[in-house]
């Protein structure tokens, strides 16, 4: 403090030392420095103290445990995992499982939420009432209760693996999950993938051209059908030309379960359905509020210009409603991600179940494990917020 004051004092000698102390700017900086220093000291003290206490109690500490062999199995993994791998690997498996539910859950919740939100404003009395009932029931139930209801409901209704429900494409449904054939790439499939890229580039170019033409001539080009045709058609052609370079490994009946194929676990299905239903009710309300927040004048003006109802919704109402919708929507996405940690209750191997559960119990390194787990959720939340803020800025009114 004295140092800072003296240096400044040397430059402007006319001012007294005490003047600086009463200068709000200098004082502001000074106190911030003090507070940061104190907080760092506090954190340092807390860490030191924790380490000392753990040592005094004979409890192992440090992050070395991450390299030790896990020794337990995990029911679902997006990356290769075996029980001979490390705790660190188990962490990644859990994290990816969490991300999977979070991303899929957000997609489903948003889709359903927008539909229900629009339905609440429907002219049709019955549809509006049903949507209201949906929202009122779902958002007033505790999410954990919903998960249990969905999970055990699913288990009770699905047949045992010996009486699996046969679905098209050699798929089966039973109380152990939804089994679909696993797909393996044969040589030559690379060409199909490449053709998909080419198709995508063509479509994007076509969009740009259509847009340019629209601004130039005011004439609209059909977008959806040609795009779909190209995106599906070209790779399909390549696929057929290459002699269908895919092989399927369909599930077959074993003694206890179906073997082979890919299984979507009932835990994953229940968790997705539970989280999506719960969050969609909140999203529906946000969407309704957003749409109602757009002045009716806008709609009337659009109608007066001769736009069709669908066009009014997509071109006039939604873009403006989005500005109202996005900020609270971000909150719902964060909630859904955090609520996904309820997975542990119904046996889905998410980060909390695998890492803050089994790993914590086997290593007993609660401080380290919880610290890592909390940081992960913090980072996930911050990333979601960042993305949504960026999206929000893009959607903001461009004022000319």
């Amino acid at each position, binding site marked *: 403090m004295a140092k800072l004051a003296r240096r400044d004092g040397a430059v402007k000698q006319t001012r007294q030392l005490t003047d600086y102390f009463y200068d709000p700017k200098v004082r502001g900086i000074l106190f911030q420095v003090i507070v940061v220093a104190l907080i760092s000291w506090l954190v340092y003290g807390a860490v030191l103290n924790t380490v000392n206490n753990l040592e005094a109690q004979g409890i192992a500490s440090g992050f070395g445990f991450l390299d030790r062999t896990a*020794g337990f*199995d995990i*029911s679902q993994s997006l990356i290769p995992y075996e029980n001979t791998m490390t705790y660190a690997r188990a962490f990644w498996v859990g994290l990816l499982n969490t991300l999977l539910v979070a991303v899929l859950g957000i997609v489903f919740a948003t889709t359903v939420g927008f539909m229900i939100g629009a339905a609440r404003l429907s002219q049709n009395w019955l549809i509006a009432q049903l949507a209201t009932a949906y929202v009122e029931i779902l958002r007033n139930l505790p999410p954990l209760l919903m998960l249990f209801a969905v999970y055990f409901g699913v288990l009770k209704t699905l047949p045992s693996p010996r009486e699996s429900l046969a679905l098209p494409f050699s798929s089966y449904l039973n109380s152990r999950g939804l089994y679909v054939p696993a797909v393996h790439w044969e040589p030559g499939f690379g060409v199909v993938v490449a053709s998909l890229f080419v198709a995508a580039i063509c479509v994007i170019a076509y969009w740009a051209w259509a847009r340019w033409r629209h601004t130039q001539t005011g004439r609209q080009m059909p977008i959806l059908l040609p795009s779909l045709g190209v995106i599906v058609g070209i790779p399909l052609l390549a696929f057929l030309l290459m002699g269908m370079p895919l092989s399927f490994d369909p599930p077959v009946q074993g003694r206890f379960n179906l073997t082979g194929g890919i299984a979507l676990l009932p835990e994953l299905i229940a968790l997705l359905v539970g989280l999506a239903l719960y969050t969609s009710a909140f999203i529906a309300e946000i969407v309704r509020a957003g749409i109602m927040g757009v002045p009716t004048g806008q709609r009337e003006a659009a109608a007066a210009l001769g736009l069709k109802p669908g066009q009014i919704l997509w071109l006039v109402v939604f873009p403006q409603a989005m500005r109202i919708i996005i900020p609270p929507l971000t909150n719902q996405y964060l909630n859904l991600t955090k609520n996904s940690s309820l997975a542990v209750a119904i046996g889905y191997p998410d980060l909390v179940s695998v890492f803050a559960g089994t790993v914590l119990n*086997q290593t007993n390194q609660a401080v380290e494990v919880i610290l890592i787990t909390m940081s992960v959720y913090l980072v996930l939340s911050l990333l979601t917020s960042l993305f949504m803020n960026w999206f929000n800025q893009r959607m903001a009114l461009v004022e000319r």
Partner: protein
Amino acid sequence: MKQLVRVAAALTAGVLFCATPAAAQQSSVLETVKSRGQLFCGVNTGLAGFGAPDDKGNWKGLDVDLCRAISAAIFKDPNKVKFVPLTAKERFTALQSGEIDVLSRNTTWTMSRDTSFGLSFAGINYYDGQGFMVKRSLGVVSAKELSGASICVQAGTTTEKNLADYFRSNKMEYKLVVFEKLPETIAAYNAGRCDSFTTDVSQLYAIRLTLGKADDHVVLPEIISKEPLGPVVRQGDPQWLNIVRWTLNAMLNAEELGVNQSNVDSMLNSDNPSIRRLLGKEDTFGAAIGLDNDWAFQIIKLVGNYGDSFARNVGAQSPLGIARGQNALWKDGGLQYAPPIR
């Protein structure tokens, strides 16, 4: 400005306070328990025979009796215990953080728990091993047939690793489903999510009785692990470790010497030096662990010997009807062998 000074002062005080390590460890557990007037004992959330409340809310079980015995030794009253129900996942944290004084909850003594968890096991009150339960309708008679099966387990137990070891060494496959709590684990097994439920065999027997028609489920003969269950305390208080250890040993020695709940009063007149030492008529073993000399007399009088407790909770007189087997005294061909009170 004043506000800021106050905040700064509080922060400083916080750091100074925090930086004094292990200030909590000053008074001994025995002193704490005595001045509190109650023992805090961690037990199962509900496992018949080991630790579960009955229909009147009284805690019953082999593990519960051990805590009652400790209470009898300290307070001459078996009921000065607060039972804290804990799930498999919560138990060690509860003990480490001082929420409970002793953990008596079908907990397996393993080297990692005994060394790097900051805990000490005080003995073994039940020799157990992990087994499998399956629905009878599956027609499975051996665990060796379980390749490809789905298996339900509870998180936070030794079970998960044993299972992985067993299937790996037998080159079999399995599908695992892990639940946090016991009720959901059992509900999922019951709903057909899994072909088998696995945990310590004693627990399988206890749980089988709760599954509606117990006869629809069989416990397979294979025992895939050693699960020595026993009471646990925090490291760092040798006197408290001794109290818990010798409470269990006193119950075992009493059975060996033929001293039980109904004859303990008349045994006070026995000339057998071992019995006289046990009941505090000779020597000062009570003082050696910080208790009155009639500590073991109170345990046997108020709770009973090991055999009394076993029969009442898990053995012949209980719905579980588990045979003494490995838990018989060493002189009857079992493993229960307590060091002498001498």
